[in-house]
């Protein structure tokens, strides 16, 4: 595998940024009704009461912003969980972290009657944290961590929580109806009021991820070698888990469980930049929202005029990636 040098890495990063910008524009322009770009421009910079402008400002723009924010969170949380567990198959969705967060949100909304995101985001964080810790504990054998056991542990925990969530919804049809579209994982119809309260937490997580990227690099060589280099293992792990929890829990609280973005994106980043966490994180932050937005656009086009929730599209794109990863000769690459 040829890994790009620093100059080409930077060039690639700029390209990724441009692609992301282009996709953001497309995400605003493409939709069930065709709106000419000039109207889009006017909607953003010369607002008036025109109906098309209304569609842009109240539907497509929030949708794009939600996609950007959630995408960043998903990509970074995937990169973090893969670095932390040294597991190429790690993904917050596969590991049940999203299921934990969405179960907690269902309890909050369906049982406790919490209605606003300032309330139920705490449940999402707590659910994500508990599941992360459980999977890390269940997935570690005495010989160390086995990638497959960890995946199985995550899927089992996720299945239990999914079943429990289903039980809650079955006994409570109102909650069932209210959360049906949320459960599929979607960035449609999420007002920006859902995003603002969570942004500070994402900022904290971003800072934490930056702080642990160096130590995580050293830990890729093994715990003993990292400790010999002066890395404080426990502190690095705790910080990484906090960042991961905030990102995965927050993304779930906003958009519902969207799987596989966190699995695919860090792998693509690694092809470009090699095993260098800081670059992987930077690429993931740009590539993940691109993937999410393009999946969302795809979901709008494929079944036009009806739409497929983005979580379903990413599962259909991402599951084959998982299968391809495990079919490779070496199921590692970390």
């Amino acid at each position: 595998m040829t890994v790009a040098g620093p100059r080409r890495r930077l060039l690639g990063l700029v390209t990724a940024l441009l692609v992301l910008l282009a996709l953001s524009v497309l995400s605003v322009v493409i939709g069930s009704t065709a709106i000419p770009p000039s109207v889009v421009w006017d909607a953003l910079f010369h607002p008036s009461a025109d109906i098309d402008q209304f569609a842009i400002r109240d539907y497509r723009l929030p949708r794009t912003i939600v996609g950007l924010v959630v995408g960043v969170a998903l990509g970074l949380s995937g990169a973090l969980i893969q670095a932390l567990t040294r597991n190429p198959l790690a993904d917050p969705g596969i590991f049940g972290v999203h299921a934990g967060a969405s179960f907690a949100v269902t309890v909050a909304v369906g049982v406790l009657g919490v209605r606003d995101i300032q309330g139920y985001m705490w449940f999402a964080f707590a659910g994500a944290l508990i599941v992360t810790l459980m999977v890390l504990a269940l997935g570690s054998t005495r010989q160390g961590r086995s990638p497959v056991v960890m995946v199985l542990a995550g899927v089992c925990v996720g299945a239990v929580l999914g079943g429990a969530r289903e039980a809650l919804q079955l006994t409570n049809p109102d909650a069932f109806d209210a959360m049906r579209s949320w459960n599929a994982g979607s960035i449609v119809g999420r007002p920006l009021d859902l995003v603002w309260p969570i942004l500070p937490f994402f900022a904290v997580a971003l800072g934490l991820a930056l702080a642990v990227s160096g130590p995580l690099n050293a830990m890729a060589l093994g715990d003993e070698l990292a400790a010999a280099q002066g890395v404080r293992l426990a502190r690095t792990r705790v910080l990484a888990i906090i960042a991961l929890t905030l990102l995965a829990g927050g993304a779930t609280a906003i958009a519902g469980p969207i799987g596989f973005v966190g699995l695919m994106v860090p792998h693509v980043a690694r092809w470009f930049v090699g095993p260098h966490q800081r670059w992987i994180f930077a690429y993931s932050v740009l590539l993940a929202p691109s993937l999410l937005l393009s999946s969302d656009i795809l979901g709008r086009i494929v079944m036009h005029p009806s739409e497929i929730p983005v979580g379903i599209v990413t599962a259909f794109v991402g599951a084959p990636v998982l299968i391809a990863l495990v079919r490779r000769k070496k199921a590692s690459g970390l």
Partner: protein
Amino acid sequence: MSTGVSSARRRSTGGAPGEQVDFGRRVLVLRRRRIAVRLEWRSVVVCAVLALAVACLAVLALMTGSYQLSPGQVVSALTGGETGLVHDIVVEWRLPRVVAALVFGAALGVSGAVFQSMLRNPLADPGVIGFSQGSYTGALIVILLVNGTYMQLVGGALLGGMATAILVYVLAYRRGVKGFRLIIVGIGVSAMLGSLNTWLILKADLKAAMAAAAWGAGSLNGVSWDRVVIGGACIAVLLLLAAMLSRPMRQLELGDDVAASQGVRVSPVRLGLVVAGVALTATVTAASGPIAFISLVAPQIARRLARTAGITLAPAAFVGALLCLAADYIAQHIAPTPLPVGIITVMLGGGYLGWLLFTEARRRL
């Protein structure tokens, strides 16, 4: 026809006095002219105790309901001593459900045992690997798109489960099928099917979606004699297949090479096991919806009760039957509102995972 029952504990012959040497377990050997069956005494005793527990629980389940009966009435109704209302309640209304719980539970226990043995992993479960998701997809298509009859639903679920199994097997095939590859591919396929199912439910109107979701939670509601007989017949055949493959299955646990050197034809045996395991799960799923986690939990409990080295089928079947019946009893009579049995078994799976977590944590301290 001679039936010889002999129990033998091989005595220590050469060891020094006082030295504890384990010469294996007490075994029970049944010999006929053609077939000889060698059973471990402990497994036999455990199965007998479990069967007794199942019988007691079954009588309890037959007694309980809005029209309470006495144990004597139940027994005499079962033996044909009662007529009229009591006979109808016990034999026509409550018995099919109890029999269904027993048969389906046993099938799930065996199915889980087959998969855990084959993939050499206590967390491998046909539900986790996506076969119940596939059955659910098949059933959903019948419920939501075709609006079909019950038999069409059963067919859809069976087809869905089988097609998923074939897909997973083919995708995991790369000069042979490795256990961990099968698991991960199964998880991937399961995720795709899961989102397909979510989307199908999302497209449906609320009433159909609720019905589909209720089926998807796994329920023994509305199980009648004709359904039990059809499902039971399929399950009986499949259980026989699994029993015939149980010896090579234990040898496969030693590794493919060792098993092959002992004369096991690895690929055909594994294919047979996959077919038996998948078909057992698919049959149950078709009849009642996916009843989760019995296949995960039952083999492990059975293994600890019978203290066998690996996974054994018969105790797993009895534990599965007991768990399923108990879960259905709890779902019907103890829960505040009657719930689908699958919900209770999910909690069971949660308890199992918690226990696993606890023992793992204790082991590391």
